[in-house]
């Protein structure tokens, strides 16, 4: 199958067909590589197919998102299994990533047993270092108490659970934008977190590569569906002076990317089920494709981001 983009009305490097190909991607992860301060992404399927080690770089890490453990409806009756498949892909990588980030919606309903299942399955992953941010599904009834007890042990979480850390000269910022949401509004960071962020990056040189991760997109993807964060502009204002800022989000269960100056915004696939493209369905709820199709689609399509390209390259990598 061809990989070219036939229609690109939005000039965003992605056409409808390419977009649908992205949808085939549930159950995989994205490998992010920091090379010379710029992030490049490859799918695991692609790396596994190549059978070669990841080229020597400063740092590599992996993003997984939206596991929704506990979801059992038509869109995917076994989300635990597809989460396992994602971990199998990680385990099959010739060179393991340094660590994982999970961009939220670990569970469907914030239930202790759902968190238990996730933790149990995660043990099978050979990469043990995992950094989390919560999705709205992880903080449903207790304001995120259970989430924080479980997933902030290795970091110094502030407020409702935000934190930062450094790896190989890259500054990572984990933000929480799923709590205290206001009626009629979008995702929200809040004043306390924004003040912390301003302070957190104050002492950093402008050449420090920055990676920000949070659940709900920090750019306005589709406000009609709540796909955006009301005060993200202020957060990005504090990051304006940096030469390389990469924003990694989940929530919308599909790959979308936007480049704005030095900032690259990217949303990841889910390991559970796809959601419709913005505005293409009555609601952003789970999108059902035949179960056998979902499974066979795993690892079929990859998305690459390369330095110098402003858009996504959507590439077929059919393993069957």
């Amino acid at each position, binding site marked *: 199958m061809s990989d070219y983009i036939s229609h690109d009305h939005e000039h965003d490097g992605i056409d409808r067909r390419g977009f649908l190909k992205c949808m085939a991607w549930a159950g995989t992860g994205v490998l992010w590589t920091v090379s010379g301060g710029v992030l490049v992404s490859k799918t695991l399927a692609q790396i596994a197919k190549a059978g070669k080690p990841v080229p020597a770089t400063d740092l590599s890490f992996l993003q997984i998102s939206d596991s929704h453990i506990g*979801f059992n*409806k*038509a*869109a995917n009756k076994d989300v635990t299994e597809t989460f396992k498949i994602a971990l199998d892909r990680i385990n099959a990588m010739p060179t393991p990533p340094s660590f994982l980030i999970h961009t939220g919606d670990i569970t*469907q*309903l*914030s239930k202790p047993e759902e968190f238990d299942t996730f933790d149990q399955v995660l043990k099978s992953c050979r990469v043990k270092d995992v950094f989390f941010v919560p999705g*709205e*599904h992880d903080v*449903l*009834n207790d304001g995120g108490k259970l989430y924080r007890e479980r997933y902030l042990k290795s970091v110094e979480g502030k407020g409702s659970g935000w934190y930062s850390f450094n790896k190989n000269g890259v500054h990572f910022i984990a933000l929480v934008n799923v709590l205290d*949401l*206001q*009626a*009629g*509004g*979008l995702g929200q960071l809040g004043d306390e977190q924004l003040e912390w962020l301003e302070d957190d990056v104050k002492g950093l040189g402008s050449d420090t590569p920055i990676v920000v991760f949070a659940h709900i997109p920090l750019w306005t993807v589709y*406000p*009609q*569906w*709540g796909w955006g964060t009301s005060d993200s502009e202020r957060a990005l204002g504090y990051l304006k002076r940096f030469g390389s800022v990469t924003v990694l989000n989940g929530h919308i269960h599909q790959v979308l990317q936007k480049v704005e100056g030095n900032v690259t915004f990217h949303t990841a696939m889910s390991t559970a089920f796809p959601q419709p493209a913005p505005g293409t369905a*009555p*609601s*952003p*709820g*789970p999108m059902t494709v035949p179960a056998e199709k979902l499974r066979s689609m795993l690892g079929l399509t990859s998305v690459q981001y390369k330095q110098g390209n402003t858009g996504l390259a959507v590439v077929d990598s059919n393993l069957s």
Partner: protein
Amino acid sequence: MKTFNSKIKIAALLCGISSLSLSALPGEMKDTGSSGAGQNRIEIKDFAFNPPTVTVKSGEKVTWINRDEEPHTVVSVEKQFKKSSALDTDQEFTITAGAPGTYTYYCSVHPKMTGTIVVEK
């Protein structure tokens, strides 16, 4: 026949007790905790409350039912009635309308979703 009459009397008595216990305090709406289905039903479907505005009489029950595959909540904007827990598919939440007034609410998981309950005397 005698037994039947007694049953009606007991039922009437029970109804009386339950309506007494359900009368809400002025200025607030009360969570009845039951799934008592009246005609004031609000369906949560496609990330929306339908109908978005419902007019009820004070003392009547209002029931939400979630028909989405996504959890939703019912939360009073002004915290005028007890919020629901996260409602999974087909789960219900019922309150009893309190003092007359306009009560706006939203889904705290998907705050774009808003609705209004108008309570009349």
